[in-house]
């Protein structure tokens, strides 16, 4: 097919970006791909995700962390007859107090800049649903707050999976 002038504005997700990804990723964008774009990651959550044996303990899941920029976490159900039903249950902890929330409805969680959030973990999935992570900044950033976890949960996590990302080193 002949090339068109604005083909350059149509981006298709390249699976090579996340070779070990368990979640089927549908779309990814950031300032490195398109100058001026914020960070966006959109993927399916399939039955079984989050319920793997290595996450079978209290406070498992994506560990507590912050981002430099505000983040919007859209949880989107896929039942066209009942779109506000997530068809799943996700545990999400908010704040340094680890306030526990159970997400079962289509919704968006607003995460202010540097607000501690997670662990985030699906605990039930009746049908695939869509997760969208939008950061109001040009690229992904992350800083761990694992110190708020109970000791036994902290000891069971594989911390190599959750490195800090683009927070400045603290000079002493």
């Amino acid at each position: 097919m002949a090339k068109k002038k604005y083909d350059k504005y149509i981006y298709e997700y390249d699976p090579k970006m996340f070779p070990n990804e368990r979640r089927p990723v549908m779309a990814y964008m950031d300032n490195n791909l398109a100058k001026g774009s914020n960070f966006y990651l959109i993927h399916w959550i399939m039955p079984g995700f989050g319920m793997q044996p290595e996450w079978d303990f209290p406070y498992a899941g994506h560990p507590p962390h912050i981002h430099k920029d505000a983040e919007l976490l859209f949880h989107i159900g896929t039942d066209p007859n009942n779109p506000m039903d997530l068809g799943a249950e996700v545990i999400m902890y908010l704040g340094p107090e680890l306030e526990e929330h159970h997400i079962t409805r289509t919704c968006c969680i607003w995460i202010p800049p540097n607000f501690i959030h997670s662990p985030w973990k699906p605990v039930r999935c009746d049908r695939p649903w869509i997760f969208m992570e939008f950061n109001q900044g040009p690229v992904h950033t992350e800083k761990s707050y694992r110190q708020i976890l109970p000791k036994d949960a902290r000891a069971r996590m594989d911390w190599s999976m959750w490195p800090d990302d683009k927070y400045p080193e603290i000079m002493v």
Partner: protein
Amino acid sequence: MAYRIDTKKCLKCGLCVTQDCPENAFVVTNKVKEDDGLILYTVIIDENKCTECDTCFSHEWWCPAKAIIRG
């Protein structure tokens, strides 16, 4: 009115030191590396540097633990 860090609330993340205090009043006094690689920082607000401009206290994003207190 002096500002200080509530040591009971502080998570020792050190983020406050990187937040561009106009007077560089946030000072690390101790640094400890935990078994899983996390580095914890003990930080104080140097009262000789702090001009009580209120920048750190008034910006919600400055301290994730809300450990900066006034008075």
